[in-house]
C-alpha cells in the first residue's frame, strides 16, 4: 500500500513543478491526503474481496475433491464391470467353442474342398459339355463368408455330378479348332472324364478357355479306328475303345514326341551317311538277287535240254568248253572246263563281298555317330554345365539314333548277304559238279553208242 502511494506521488511531480508557490503546495497536500484516504478505502475493498474469493476457492476445492472421489468410485465400479464382463465373455467364448465344436473344422474343409473342386471341374472334360458348372464352383471357392447350407449342398451335388458324369459316355455338339486354326462344329463323343473324340480324331480340351482342339499328331492307327467305331456305334452296342487314363496328358505329350522324319533328322550328317550306305547296299542286293534268279532259271532250262547248248548260262558255257575240246585228252578238258567255271563263279559271287563290307560298315558308322553325339553332349556340358538336361538331349539323340540306323542298315544287309551267299554256293556246286557230271554221263553214253 505504501508503495502505491509513493507511485502516486511520483506521478504528480511534474504538476508540482508547474504549480509554483505555497498555494499550490497546500492544495497538493490536501489532494494527497484525500487521495490516500480513497486509496486506503479501495484497498480495503479489494482486501475484502480477496478474502471473500479465498473462501470461495476453498469451497471450490472441496467440491472438486468430492468430484474426484465420485469419479474414482465410478472407475472402480466400471473396472469391476469390465472384469466381470471379461469372465462372462470368456465363458461365452468357451460356450461358443463348445457348441460350434466340429463346425469350425467343417468350414475349413468346405473351403479346401471347394478349392480342390474348382481345379478338378475346371480341368475336367465334362466342363466342355457343361460350362455353366465353372461359374458355380468359382463362386463357392471364392466366397470368404461362412458357407450356408445351400452352398454346402451345391458343392456336394457338383462333386457327385462330376463322379457320375466321369463314368458315362455322352454325345453333344461343340466347336472344334483345327490344328491350322480354323473352327468347325462337330458331333463330339465324350468318354467319361478321359477322352473326347470326333470321328476318328482325338481332341484335346483346353481348360483355360474351354475350347476343344484337334490333336496335331494323332495316336496310332488302331486307337484311331477304335475311336471311329465308338463314334459310329449304335446305342447299347459294346465296342472296344482305347482310352487315355491320364485324362489327356499322354495324348498331349504325343504331340511333342518326334515323328520318324524328325528322328532321322536328329541323326545328323552321320545318320544320313548311314542311310545312304544302307540304300546302296540294298540296291546291290536287289541287283544280285535278280541276276542270280535269272542265271538260275536259265540254268534250269539248260539242264532240261542238254542236247542244245545255249551260251547265255554257265552250264551252257561249261558244256561248250567240253564240246570244243572233246578231241583232246581228259586232263586238258578238265582244265578248260575249270577255267570257264572259275570265270563264271567270279561273276556269280561278285558284289557279295561289297554287301558284306557294307553290312560291317553300317554298325561302325553308327558307333561313329554315337561318339560324335557324345562329343556334342560334352561340348554342351562344357559350355552350360549339367544343370539343364535338355541342352544335352541333342547330342544324346544323335548318339542313339545313329546306333539305331546303323543296326537297321546292317540287319537286312547281313540277312540278304547270307541268303545270296547260300544261293551262290548252290549255283557254284551246280556248275562245277552237276554240270560236269551230267556231261560226263552223256559223253559216256555217246562213247558207248559210238
Amino acid at each position, binding site marked *: 500500500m505504501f508503495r502505491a502511494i509513493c507511485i502516486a506521488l511520483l506521478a504528480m511531480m511534474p504538476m508540482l513543478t508547474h504549480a509554483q508557490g505555497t498555494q499550490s503546495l497546500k492544495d497538493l497536500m490536501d489532494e494527497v491526503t484525500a487521495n490516500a484516504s480513497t486509496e486506503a478505502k479501495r484497498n480495503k475493498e479489494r482486501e475484502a474481496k480477496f478474502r471473500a474469493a479465498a473462501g470461495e476457492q476453498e469451497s471450490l476445492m472441496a467440491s472438486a475433491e468430492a468430484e474426484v472421489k465420485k469419479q474414482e468410485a465410478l472407475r472402480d465400479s466400471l473396472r469391476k464391470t469390465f472384469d466381470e464382463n471379461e469372465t462372462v465373455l470368456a465363458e461365452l467364448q468357451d460356450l461358443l467353442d463348445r457348441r460350434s465344436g466340429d463346425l469350425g473344422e467343417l468350414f475349413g474343409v468346405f473351403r479346401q474342398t471347394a478349392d480342390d473342386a474348382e481345379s478338378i471341374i475346371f480341368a475336367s472334360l465334362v466342363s466342355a459339355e457343361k460350362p455353366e458348372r465353372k461359374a458355380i464352383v468359382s463362386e463357392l471357392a471364392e466366397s470368404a463368408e461362412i458357407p450356408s447350407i445351400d452352398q454346402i449342398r451345391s458343392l456336394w451335388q457338383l462333386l457327385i455330378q462330376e463322379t457320375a458324369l466321369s463314368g458315362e459316355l455322352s454325345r453333344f455338339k461343340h466347336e472344334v479348332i483345327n490344328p491350322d486354326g480354323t473352327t468347325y462344329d462337330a458331333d463330339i463323343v465324350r468318354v467319361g472324364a478321359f477322352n473326347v473324340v470326333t470321328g476318328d480324331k482325338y481332341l484335346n480340351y483346353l481348360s483355360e478357355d474351354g475350347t476343344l482342339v484337334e490333336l496335331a499328331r494323332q495316336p496310332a492307327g488302331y486307337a484311331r479306328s477304335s475311336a471311329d467305331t465308338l463314334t459310329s456305334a449304335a446305342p447299347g452296342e459294346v465296342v472296344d475303345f482305347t482310352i487315355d487314363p491320364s485324362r489327356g496328358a499322354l495324348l498331349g*505329350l504325343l504331340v*511333342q*514326341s*518326334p515323328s520318324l522324319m524328325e*528322328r532321322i533328322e536328329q541323326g545328323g550328317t552321320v545318320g544320313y551317311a548311314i542311310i545312304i550306305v544302307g540304300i546302296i547296299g540294298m540296291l546291290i542286293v536287289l541287283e544280285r538277287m535278280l541276276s542270280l534268279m535269272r542265271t538260275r532259271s536259265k540254268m534250269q532250262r539248260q539242264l532240261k535240254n542238254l542236247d542244245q547248248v545255249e551260251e547265255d548260262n554257265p552250264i551252257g558255257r561249261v558244256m561248250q568248253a567240253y564240246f570244243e575240246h572233246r578231241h583232246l585228252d*581228259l586232263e586238258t578238258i*578238265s582244265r578248260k572246263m575249270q577255267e570257264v567255271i572259275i570265270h563264271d563263279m567270279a561273276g556269280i559271287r561278285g558284289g557279295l563281298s561289297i554287301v558284306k563290307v557294307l553290312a560291317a560298315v553300317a*554298325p561302325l558308322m553308327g558307333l561313329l555317330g554315337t561318339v560324335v553325339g557324345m562329343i556334342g553332349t560334352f561340348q554342351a556340358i562344357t559350355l552350360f554345365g549339367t544343370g539343364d*538336361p*535338355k541342352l544335352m*538331349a541333342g547330342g*544324346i*539323340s544323335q548318339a*542313339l*539314333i545313329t*546306333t*539305331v540306323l546303323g*543296326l*537297321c542298315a*546292317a*540287319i537286312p544287309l*547281313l*540277312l540278304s548277304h*547270307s*541268303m545270296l*551267299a*547260300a544261293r551262290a*554256293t*548252290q549255283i557254284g*556246286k*551246280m556248275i*562245277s*559238279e*552237276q554240270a*560236269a*557230271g*551230267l*556231261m*560226263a*554221263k552223256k*559223253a*559216256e553214253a555217246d562213247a558207248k553208242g559210238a
Partner: protein
Amino acid sequence: MGLLPMFQDFMDKGGNVLWAILFMAIWLWWMILERYWYFFAEHKLGKKACISTWEARDEYTSWYADRERAQLISEVDCSMLKNLKMIPTLIALLPMFGLLGTVTGMIQVFDVMAFMGSGNPRAMANGVSAATIPTMAGMVVALIAIPFATGLDRRYKRELRLLKTALKQH
C-alpha cells in the same frame, strides 16, 4: 491272368522290336525243325537213291565215273545245305535285334526325361523295360538255338562223309 493276356502284356512291354524278334525266332525255329525233319526223313531216301544210282554203274574208275560221283554227292549236298547256312546268320542277328531294342528303349527313356525331367522313375520304367526285354529275348532265343545249330552242322558234315565213303571208288 490267362496265357494270352500275359503274352500280350509281355509284348506290349517289349515294344515293336520284340515283335521283330518273335518273327525271327519263329523263322529260326521253323528252319531248325525243317532241317531235322529233312535229316530224319527225306535225307535217307535221297541217300538211298544216290547210292543205288552209283551201284548201278558198271565201272567206278574212269574220269566219267569220277565226275558222276561228284555230281551225285553235290546233289545230296545241295539239298542238305538248303537253309542250313541261314540258321547261324539268324542266330547272329537275334542279339543285334536285342541291341536295337535296347537303343530304341533308351530313346524312349530320354524322350520321357525331356518331358518330365529325371525325377519320375515310374514314367521311365516303360522305356527301361522296352530296352531290356528285347535284349533278353534275343539272347535267350539265340542261346537256345546254338546247340541245335551246331548239332545240325555236325550232322551235315557226318552225312557228307558217310556219303563219300558209301560211294566207293574201287
